[in-house]
């Protein structure tokens, strides 16, 4: 369905009034840490101080003696229980061995936080150091310490695990396209370019730390209030880890205080289950932000090695890349098959490259397990790939936009991993850069402009939604997608109203926990508008048919002739008969509730031509050559979008995406020293503030051809991964140095300038 109906156009174009707005602006929206359960105990965890060690002994006797302490559990008490999203390799509590500093060694439940803290300090653990490896590439060398010598017992949730050439690999992938002997193509190239790029671990920076409240009721039902963005996924994991039957686990993650990938990985629920079992009391766990930064599941650090050959006309003929992602001690936090970071194939994702050889390595190291963060891996793939492209264009003496226009994918082209595109908009967004920005105009000294072309898949998944006509004539939409701020409830309301052709105010959207609502894949990968929106269309279409039939029945109208349109039931037989929605629906509902289930699974879509949002950036900077400080003077994001359902929220997502990418590009770095994270507060790990954000302009290139409802595409994590490359390319344009390591700190720029001058500081 790509054409907008009149109803849809009217409903979608009006600025929305978000359903959850009143709760959120009044402090009444209930987040997990706000949940109070009588008699709850506080949970605290003892974390390993060492990156790799054998646990010789643990003595909990002094901790157990602390007044108010109700349970102290170690791995010996609960056994080796492994959890994960796809690969179950992370122990709930360490058994015999710790593999990263921050790993949980013991769990305490106590009446007060103070008692829990005291108990933690009194647990005596004797460790014996083991050799550690912290670097992704070193982990793959001969003789590197093996973190998981025998992974055969690890459960893997996606069929057969891919082959891995080294036991220190969580994931490995080799993608090839075109000529088998790529060296032959490189040998024939007019020129070959090589570059190395790297980026650090970064933290999602959500403001709400992980929290969970868990209790087991008299009927042995486990109730969980969680920050998990995929509550059904958590239910499955909890069931598999604990053996507790999944129908007797109810997960409620209604409001999530910031996700950005970080709430895909939750770890507190598992030990809290065992603490609740041990004490018979509800357990409440709220992490400190220091714990979040030390042992959350940050974005992977990465190193890219890129090599690209071009012909005499500047056309890319071959591309080879190797990406080494530092996965940390466990692969458990990643939701992708084979524990891959999806951006491994990403550096040249928007270009028509006939011959490729792309390898992705995700290593085990004795560092914090890494997970997903907004457009996982893509910021680094973008920085590497678009810096590399910029480098090639400049070396060839070509305008960077023209070079991209020459090589980008068009209708029918296939990407470097041989992927197909449904109506790719690379050319359109590049043309908009030329048309709508200052690209190509004269520049002042130390000023420069950078351009970037990237894309982002709209996201896939499955979801089910229940639409019900309630007594009184309201229509309830019940679904289980947690609200992490995207405005999905309002999407559901507007899409349902557009399909049903009723006043949106008639649709009451309600979140349901896993006990009440139907299966949902959770929010993430920018999928919600697409997946939940399509489920809503299915449900609303079915409900509409039922209501039309029932209207005929209760009103005595001719069967098959009743249409619901313009908030009225009308009889399409020329009689002019009909009635207001409220009156007729009221009479239908008096006979009982009417229910329809809308289900959607994106797997039913053709995978041959996938849907992407293409986008481009044009960013102008000024570099202070004496300090290396970079100021963004002008930022324009050009975004290929489909139908927009919530215009205010849609722009808000694009704004937020830019600023998120700005922080990632300019300042964010989780510093690790000997396996320990040392940036342990938001005073050290800085996020952009109001005063730091540059002026931003958004140019929409709109075409309602997406796979979402009414031709919608994604909005959430499209443009964040282009900022770093655009700024880095602009720095090159301004002062001639190419910044190959993120973040683009003043010090790094300064050092590059010194090096360029040949000076040593």
């Amino acid at each position: 369905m790509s054409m907008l109906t009149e109803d849809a156009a009217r409903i979608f174009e009006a600025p929305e009034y978000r359903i959850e707005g009143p709760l959120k602006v009044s402090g009444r929206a209930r987040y997990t840490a706000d949940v109070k359960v009588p008699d709850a105990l506080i949970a605290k965890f003892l974390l390993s101080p060492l990156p790799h060690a054998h646990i010789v002994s643990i003595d909990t006797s002094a901790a157990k003696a602390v007044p108010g302490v109700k349970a102290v559990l170690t791995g010996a008490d609960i056994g080796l229980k492994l959890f994960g999203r796809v690969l179950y390799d992370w122990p709930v509590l360490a058994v015999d061995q710790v593999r990263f500093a921050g790993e949980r060694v013991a769990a305490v439940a106590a009446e007060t936080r103070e008692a829990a803290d005291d108990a933690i300090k009194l647990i005596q653990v004797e460790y014996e150091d083991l050799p550690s490896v912290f670097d992704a590439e070193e982990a793959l060398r001969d003789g590197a310490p093996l973190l998981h010598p025998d992974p055969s017992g690890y459960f893997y949730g996606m069929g057969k695990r891919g082959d891995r050439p080294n036991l220190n690999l969580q994931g490995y992938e080799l993608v090839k396209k075109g000529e088998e002997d790529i060296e032959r193509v490189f040998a024939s190239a007019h020129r070959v370019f090589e570059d190395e790029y790297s980026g650090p671990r970064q933290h999602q920076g959500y403001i709400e730390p992980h929290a969970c409240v868990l209790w087991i009721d008299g009927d042995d039902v486990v109730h969980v209030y969680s920050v998990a963005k995929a509550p059904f996924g958590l239910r499955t994991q909890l069931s598999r880890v604990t053996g507790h039957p999944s129908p007797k686990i109810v997960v409620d993650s209604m409001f999530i205080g910031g996700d950005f990938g970080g709430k895909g990985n939750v770890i507190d629920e598992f030990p809290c289950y065992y603490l609740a079992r041990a004490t018979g009391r509800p357990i409440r766990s709220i992490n400190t932000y220091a714990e979040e930064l030390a042992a959350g599941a940050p974005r992977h650090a990465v190193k890219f090695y890129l090599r690209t050959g071009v012909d005499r006309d500047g056309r890319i003929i071959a591309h080879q890349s190797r990406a080494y992602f530092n996965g940390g001690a466990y692969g458990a936090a990643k939701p992708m098959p084979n524990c891959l970071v999806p951006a491994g194939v990403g550096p040249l994702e928007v270009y028509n490259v006939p011959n490729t050889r792309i390898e992705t390595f995700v290593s085990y190291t004795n560092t914090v397990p890494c997970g997903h963060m907004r457009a996982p891996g893509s910021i680094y793939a973008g920085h590497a790939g678009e810096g590399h492209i910029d480098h090639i264009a400049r070396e060839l003496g070509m305008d960077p936009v023209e070079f991209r226009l020459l090589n980008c994918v068009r209708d029918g082209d296939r990407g470097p991993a041989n992927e197909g595109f449904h109506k790719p908009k690379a050319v359109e967004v590049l043309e908009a850069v030329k048309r709508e920005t200052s690209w190509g105009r004269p520049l002042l000294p130390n000023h420069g402009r950078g351009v970037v072309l990237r894309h982002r898949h709209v996201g896939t998944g499955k979801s089910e939604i229940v639409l019900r006509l309630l007594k009184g004539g309201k229509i309830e939409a019940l679904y289980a997608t947690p609200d992490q701020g995207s405005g999905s409830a309002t999407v559901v309301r507007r899409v349902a109203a557009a399909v049903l052709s009723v006043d949106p105010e008639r649709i009451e959207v309600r979140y349901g926990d896993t006990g009440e609502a139907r299966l949902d894949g959770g929010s993430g990968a920018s999928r919600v508008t697409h997946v939940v929106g399509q489920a809503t269309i299915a449900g609303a279409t079915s409900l509409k048919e039922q209501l039309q039939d029932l209207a005929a029945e209760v009103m005595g109208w001719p069967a098959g002739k009743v249409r619901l349109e313009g908030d009225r039931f009308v009889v399409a037989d020329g009689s002019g008969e009909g009635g207001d929605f409220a009156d007729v629906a009221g009479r239908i509902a008096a006979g009982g509730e009417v229910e329809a289930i809308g289900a959607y699974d994106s797997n039913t879509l053709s995978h041959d031509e996938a849907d992407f949002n293409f986008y481009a950036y044009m960013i102008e900077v000024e570099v202070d050559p004496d300090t290396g400080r970079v100021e963004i003077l002008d930022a324009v994001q050009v975004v290929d979008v489909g139908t927009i359902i919530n215009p205010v929220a849609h722009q808000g997502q694009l704004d937020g995406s830019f600023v998120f990418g700005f922080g990632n590009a300019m300042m964010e770095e989780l510093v690790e020293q000997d396996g320990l994270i040392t940036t342990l507060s938001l005073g050290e790990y800085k996020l952009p503030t109001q005063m730091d954000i540059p002026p931003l302009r958004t140019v929409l290139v709109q075409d309602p051809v997406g796979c979402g409802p009414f031709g919608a595409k994604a909005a959430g994590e499209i443009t964040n991964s282009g900022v770093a490359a655009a700024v880095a390319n602009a720095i090159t344009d301004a002062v001639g140095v190419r910044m190959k390591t993120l973040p683009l700190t003043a010090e790094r720029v300064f050092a590059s300038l010194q090096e360029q001058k040949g000076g040593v500081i």
Partner: protein
Amino acid sequence: MRTFDYHAVGSAAEALDLLAQYGEDAHLMAGGTSLMLMMEQGLIQPGHVVGLRSANELRGIGASSGGIEIRALTTHREVERSSHVRDYCPTLVEAFERIATIRIRNQATIGGNLVHADPAQDPPPILLALDAEVVIQSKIGERTVPLDGFFRDYFETVVEEGELLASVRLPAIVAGTKSTYVKFLPRTEDDYATLSVGAALRLGADGSCEHVRVALGSAAPTPIRARKVEAALQGQRLTGPMIDEAAELVRDEVDPLDDVRGSAKYKREMARVWTGRALRSLLDGGGK
């Protein structure tokens, strides 16, 4: 956090009595912003906290022999919004406006700030540039110490056990003296400085440097005066290149920490750059 006994006192004398009574086990609390964090982390675990908030005699801003006196409990926000302070020296206002965020400035006090002795704080460099003194009170009386000499080491000052910092005194500013405060923030605007410089300059009728002060924050374990830079400029007829040359000397005077705000090497270079920029702006008629 360990629990403690909280003693709200109404006067400095009461506070000093409690300090005498509990010795090392007592800790003074003014605004509490830094102390709360250190106690929360378990780094300081006093049995007794002496809360100064109601000791009104320790609060307020007034004139003092041609200059100005800022009592210890005055919040940063009060300093920033005080017309007294603005009339005395607008640069002081600008420096205080740069401290963290309004929330912190509403709570944190000038006395607490100085006693905390974090070298990355904003007030010390500008106060050093303006030749501030501090008044330290004990049961046996008062002593006045120049701020230059007040800081001993990281988090360490000359305030001894049984003493409290009562006020900060700033002398009259000789007509024609200009001052400036520059804070280099390459990450975010609410960050601690990577490097900061407070400077004051007065030129004589013949254009020679009659008076010069350069002080730096985030440049060493304590806020410091750049005496070699000052000495190189004192009495000279200043030019831009001469300032740049003198600013080079600051490299030997600083001893910065390596941290997320910059390596020691980088901060050393930034000390040079910002010392030069601060002084050049004063020479070029900038500053207040």
